[in-house]
């Protein structure tokens, strides 16, 4: 792992307009991602965790320009991705790939798997069918799929195998960076372990850089070097895996960790149960966004937005009380 940044995200904002009335005028914005900055170094995997609606998937998609940003810059190897033309971006996409949560809905049910995996090669100028097939079979083998499955349709595969197909599709162009958007959340435990192991093997062998989006802290801890915790569109804490799990600073991170059920019945731990629900991102609370559910909130939290600052050793946190 080097200290050279591959992805630089600076003050990125992504707002979705809410329209209303007869003329569909914009009456407000859902602030899905609200001023987030981080970098991912080459060969590193950064985990993004948070609950549904916190904006973690939106960040992944904005980096790949599946969604256009509202404000901010995103650089890949120093190139500002959102300033590229459509055609330049299309060619750039070979280096940036994504794997989705539900492998079934991301595969065309009428395309044979071999074709679905090789499609991108054709789009990017590989003409020779024999060459395409050779490369597809190579990638299928790496992902643990058998050669005879080349001519099968997606419905003939189990969930775990479909996720392998999804990973094979992402790998075929030899990318440098992959966004993994909840890749194991839909899988059973015994299959989940197989896919997590595959992902860590691939990273080691191909020096890939990952942005791993998940709500499951234990999987993130297993796979990532650094972890960012998000709440309502903002990063609340970002640190190395060791620092975050051994010494979580933000009250939300602590609550999130204590909420995870541990498979050990002898353990009787003190749990922080957060009260209430996540506020709507269309109308986030003033001051610190977490103050409505924070067990330690004080007056300053209701009025002033805490700064996301470095508290030493690149451990970033946004909380007045730290």
């Amino acid at each position, binding site marked *: 792992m080097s200290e050279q940044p591959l992805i630089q995200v600076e003050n990125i904002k992504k707002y979705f307009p809410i329209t209303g009335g007869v003329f569909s005028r914009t009456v407000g914005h859902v602030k899905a991602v609200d001023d987030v900055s981080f970098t991912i170094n080459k060969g590193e995997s950064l985990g993004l965790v948070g*609950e*549904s609606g916190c904006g973690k998937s939106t960040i992944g998609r904005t980096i790949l320009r599946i969604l256009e940003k509202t404000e901010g810059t995103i650089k890949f190897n120093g190139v500002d991705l959102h300033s590229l033309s459509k055609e330049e971006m299309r060619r750039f996409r070979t280096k940036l790939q994504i794997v989705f949560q539900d492998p079934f809905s991301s595969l065309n049910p009428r395309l044979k798997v071999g074709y679905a995996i090789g499609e991108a090669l054709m789009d990017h100028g590989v003409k020779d069918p024999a060459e395409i097939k050779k490369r597809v079979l190579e990638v299928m083998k790496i992902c643990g799929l058998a050669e005879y499955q080349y001519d099968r349709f997606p419905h003939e595969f*189990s*969930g*775990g*195998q479909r996720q392998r197909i999804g990973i094979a599709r992402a790998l075929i162009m030899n990318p440098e960076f992959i966004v993994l958007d909840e890749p194991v959340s839909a899988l*059973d*435990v*015994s*299959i*989940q*372990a*197989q896919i*997590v*192991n595959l992902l*860590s093997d691939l990273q080691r062998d191909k020096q890939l850089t990952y942005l791993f989006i998940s*709500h499951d*802290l*234990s*999987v993130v*801890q*297993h796979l990532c070097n650094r972890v960012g915790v998000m709440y309502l569109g903002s990063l609340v804490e970002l640190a190395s895996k060791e620092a975050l*799990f051994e010494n979580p600073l933000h009250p939300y991170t602590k*609550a*999130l*960790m*204590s*909420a*995870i*059920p*541990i*498979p*050990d*019945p*002898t*353990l009787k731990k003190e*749990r922080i*149960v*957060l*009260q209430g*629900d*996540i506020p709507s991102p269309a109308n986030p609370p003033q001051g610190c966004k977490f103050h409505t559910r924070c067990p330690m909130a004080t007056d300053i939290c209701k009025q002033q937005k805490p700064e996301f600052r470095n508290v030493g050793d690149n451990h970033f946190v946004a909380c007045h009380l730290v």
Partner: protein
Amino acid sequence: MAKEIVEFRNLETHFDTPAGTLKAVNDVSFKIREGETICIVGESGCGKSVTAMSLMGLIETPPGKIVGGEILFEGQDLLKLSKRQMSKIRGKDISIIFQEPMSSLNPVLTIGEQISEPLMKHLLLDRKEAKKRAIELITMVGIPRPEKIFDSYPHELSGGMRQRIMIAIALSCDPKLLIADEPTTALDVTIQAQILDLMRNIKKTHNTAIMLITHDLGVVAEMADYVVVMYAGKVIEEAPVMELFKNPKHPYTKGLLKAKPILNQTQERLYSIPGQVPNPVDLEDNCHFSDRCESCMAICKEKPPVLKEYGEEHKAACWLYEKVGEAR
């Protein structure tokens, strides 16, 4: 020991599919005792939900059919009851909550109407009494402003609140058994913690037995008194929760416990069970786990192992614990 309220005896629920007969529940027997939380664990397609649906009498025929066995509820075989008799028990003595609260609530009825319905049907309350009781129930499941919620529609509530409403409806007639089919799988962890807390309190205050279906071993460890592990339509192991986690016997249970990454217990590489769950249609008559098992022996491929007691209250179905010579 507490009284048994439900006993499954050799239950067999099959589904006819174009590819052949799918034995979703294949000779399943276990008991649920009063005031106990029993967790049914297993991966998708192992038959845990179908077992619960068979108990509720909610198996759609065709394609499904309960072809054998008995389900005793307080000594009475539910499978012999008429539809009418069954509907008197369902929602009153036994109630169920599902994974997706939005799809189990009626979107065009207010929350109040939906909570009042079982109260008026089973307890024969009038509208006014039902409303009073419904508001008590909404308060009990920890939702503020119950009067306002009473007149709201499901889409106005968050996922966690909807699941609380489902629990309120399920508890409305003070059931003896609450079946919870993956009640927190669709929820975020912090909301999951709230719902599990609520269920624990209910068990304490109402002495309701809970049959909790889940795939999450963490949830099992927190909630269960007794655990039943299912694989490909069969019970492969059952034991009290402490015993199961301390001393798992079946290789599948061992594998499941090892495969789950645990917070703050990092390991270089996750243990993974090789292969995948077998196709449930037309399974052979052997140990269904034998293809994935590291300790597979010749006999595992030939005969199905029988669920037997090894040690106190600990049952497993595995040839490893049987002296092969004695095998029946």
